[in-house]
């Protein structure tokens, strides 16, 4: 790294509590412009929560989140972001209407909406399904449409929450291709997964989270070569699947 990295988003010791449980604890991190950041960790570690906090779907109970990118519309930084969820939410309309709906919320005019919709459907290979009802698509196609819908918004950052969690290998491969294409088009990817091989395929940098704490972070190559944290080591070996299992507790905190 010769050039000074540009800051994107700072998390300053954020905490999140729900029904008395401390789910995110004193978490600080600085996302930089450029790398694909993959958040990994066992189920229940707080990965999805962290994404939702970054995306402002939830507010931290302590600490604060700071965006460093210039907003075109300063009143709403959310306009620079988009998110794709683990289970795609398809509006009860056609495939192209799903994309156009998202664009209409950003106040984009009709001609542009049409053009952009056609463009992203082409890029994701959904053109032939444009006039089908979105809810009759296969699960993999629906997830692709969710990506296309987010991509059409041309966000600076795209949050992806376990986008391939319930897909077969072929569909997973297709989705990863689209994710890479989105990254190449200049959109920053911040994504969670519990699928280690996928993390190895996609990650430029890795954040390892366990029990709501950020235990290790760094370039993907360094992390996968040999993590220093004992939980991260256990996770890579496949010994740390559920954070509340008795054997993981024996490792201490």
């Amino acid at each position, binding site marked *: 790294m010769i050039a000074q990295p540009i800051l994107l988003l700072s998390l300053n010791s954020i905490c999140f509590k729900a029904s008395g449980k401390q789910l995110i604890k004193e978490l600080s991190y600085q996302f930089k412009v450029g790398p694909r950041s993959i958040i990994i960790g066992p189920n229940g570690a707080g990965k999805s929560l962290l994404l*939702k906090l970054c*995306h402002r*779907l939830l507010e931290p109970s302590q600490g604060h989140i700071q965006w460093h990118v210039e907003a075109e519309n300063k009143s*709403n930084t*959310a*306009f620079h972001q*988009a*998110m794709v*969820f683990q289970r795609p*939410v398809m*509006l*009860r*309309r056609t495939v192209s209407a799903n994309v156009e*709906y*998202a664009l209409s*919320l*950003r106040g984009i005019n009709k001609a542009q909406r049409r053009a952009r919709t056609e463009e992203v459907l082409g890029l994701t290979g959904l053109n032939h399904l444009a*006039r*089908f*009802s979105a809810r*009759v698509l296969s699960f993999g196609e629906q997830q692709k449409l969710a990506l296309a819908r987010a991509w059409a*918004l041309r966000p600076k950052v795209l949050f992806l929450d376990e986008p391939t969690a319930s897909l077969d290998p072929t569909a997973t491969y297709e989705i990863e291709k689209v994710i890479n294409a989105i990254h190449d088009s200049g959109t920053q990817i911040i994504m969670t997964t519990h699928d280690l091989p996928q993390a190895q395929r996609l990650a430029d940098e890795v954040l390892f989270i366990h029990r709501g704490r950020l235990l290790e972070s760094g370039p993907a190559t360094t992390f996968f070569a040999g993590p220093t944290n004992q939980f991260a080591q256990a996770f890579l070996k496949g010994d740390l699947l559920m954070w509340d299992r008795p054997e993981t507790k024996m490792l201490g905190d």
Partner: protein
Amino acid sequence: MNVFFDAISLLISADNDLLMIVGLSLWVSLVAVLVATLIGMPLGAATALYKFPGRKVLVVILNALMGLPPVVVGLLVYMLLSRSGPFGVLGLLFSPTAMIIAQTILVIPIIAALSRQIIDDLWVEYAEQLISLGASPTRRMMTLLWDGRFSLLTAVLAGFGRATAEVGAVMIVGGNIDHATRVMTTSITLEVSRGNLALALGLGIVLITLSLSINAAAFLVKEAAENRQV
């Protein structure tokens, strides 16, 4: 069984009077349901989506009012519209308008309570996505109403069923006046009191057939639209 055949032969010889009664029934109930939809649906959706003081109380009240007794509503509207009541100057008692008002009051809680449930369920599914896309609260409500349109149709049909089937309220505020406020249910009551059971049953068959056809038509529209591929 003879009564049954008599009833059917009476229907085949349907005259203008019968057509007028059927027409007025449909007109009163349709307008009442439309007005109730325009009030009840946004009310139900707002109760589902927005947090405001007294929201839970409103939900309980709406659910309870689904079982509002028609005669009580009839009496209430009668007292309001009577020449001796607060809105007497309008001279609306014993008119189709009075019947529409009474049925609207009966139907609003049904449409509002069912809409609230439908929108509530849909919101659970859509909430994060719509907030993520940056939809304003008004836009969220519009989107949910539009995406829930086929389920909401069921709520409207339930309201329509209630409106066409009730007799207590329209009898009191309409007065069952021949060629003015006589509808299907009040005609049935009248024919029963005349001991004309065949004609009463015949009218009952018309009412049931009408309600079946409307529900079947709505079901087909819903099926066709939901399975639309292109």
